[in-house]
């Protein structure tokens, strides 16, 4: 029983980093899928080039030998090969740049009107989230702080340095606008499986648009060195966003 618990509860968080992970986390947004695809596409050509260069290198080292080839070849000039090895390597980065720039510019494009705005405000060392689409005055807004759960309070199956007390709840399959800013020092709001990393600069509002494709718990940490406890956030995507938020709003409207 204990073993099964260990086995399943440690493997279950699929959208968090895992030990000895090599690839990316599973993508949950079109953005992250684009990033993963670009990575794989480039890696194919990268490996071709690697094999080709290694072959040349190893062959040269192998044949440069005082017994097998006492008199090395003394070619110092070859117009054809010089032209080829100048032009061809300069073409490769250009071909890599086309999909790369397409992805880059599609990522920060403000294409559609978002349905929800969420403000993520960085503090040392927690995040404040504001949902203020449903306000009717300046005071009442759905605001909460999200603190990382310290290592001593973790329960079995929770991820160290990732779990927080208040998760951000967002709806799936909806255009979201995340406004990222900071109240003290530079922070960065990053969630790897959403393909999002946005610097939080005090006095500036940075916007990112995301569209979460599936439900799940997505983990992320601060990506700017912001002090000692530099780890932060988590986003949850759920279907029942509406009821969740209205449940949270009702106590507030009653208070107000």
């Amino acid at each position: 029983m204990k073993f099964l618990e260990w086995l399943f509860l440690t493997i279950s968080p699929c959208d968090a980093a895992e030990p000895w992970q090599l690839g990316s986390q599973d993508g949950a947004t079109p953005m992250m899928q684009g990033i993963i695809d670009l990575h794989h596409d480039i890696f194919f050509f990268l490996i071709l080039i690697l094999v080709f260069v290694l072959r040349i290198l190893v062959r040269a080292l192998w044949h440069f030998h005082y017994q097998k080839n006492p008199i090395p070849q003394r070619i110092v000039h070859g117009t054809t090969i010089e032209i080829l090895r100048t032009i061809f390597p300069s073409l490769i980065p250009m071909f890599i740049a086309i999909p790369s720039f397409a992805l880059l510019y599609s990522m920060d494009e403000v294409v559609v009107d978002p349905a929800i705005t969420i403000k993520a405000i960085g503090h040392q060392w927690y995040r404040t989230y504001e949902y203020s689409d449903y306000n009717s005055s300046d005071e009442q807004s759905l605001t909460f702080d999200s603190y990382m759960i310290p290592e001593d309070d973790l329960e079995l199956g929770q991820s160290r340095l990732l779990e927080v007390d208040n998760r951000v709840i967002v709806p799936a399959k909806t255009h979201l606008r995340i406004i990222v800013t900071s109240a003290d020092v530079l922070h960065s709001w990053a969630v790897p499986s959403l393909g999002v990393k946005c610097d939080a600069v005090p006095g500036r509002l940075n916007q990112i648009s995301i569209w979460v494709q599936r439900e799940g718990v997505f983990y992320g940490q601060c990506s700017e060195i912001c002090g000692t406890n530099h780890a932060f956030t988590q986003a949850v995507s759920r279907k029942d966003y509406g009821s969740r938020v209205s449940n949270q709003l009702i106590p507030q409207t009653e208070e107000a």
Partner: protein
Amino acid sequence: MATDTAPSLSEQYLLDKDGKSDVGSKPVDLSKEESAEEAPTAAIEVKTEEPAAAQESTGTTPAAAEESIETTPAASSESTEAAPASSEENNETAEEEKSGEGETSEEKPEIKLETAPADFRFPTTNQTRHCFTRYIEYHRCVAAKGEGAPECDKFAKYYRALCPGEWVERWNEQRENGTFPGPL
């Protein structure tokens, strides 16, 4: 703006996703209410969609339900001129309903998914001036049209959606002290 009359792109998008996600269904219905001229049929639509909740709400507080039916035709007639303003009113009535109903409204989402639209004056990642401009626009609108003018409500909604609460508080203080650094 062009987005004022037609449903916004996100709403159009949600129409397609209507069947799949129950997040989308609610705002879509509300937008249908706005577009449809006959309010009674819209009210029936709402009832048929979630009969249990609707019946409960009519059973416990008939006054609130009547209120909503009464207010929707007014809003839909206004929607020809200014859709955002009427939707604002709809939101307010919805909130009134909620506060009136109390325990029944906990069971079904009463929220319209709507926020400040993308503004093509601010197409970049940096949205600082978007927030600031919306705040100024609201207060200039209030200065021109008078306090509580319904045309200004959309600007209030926009700046509240975009600006951090801390900033708004600071600016409100600055306006009271007469030190606000913007053209009001």
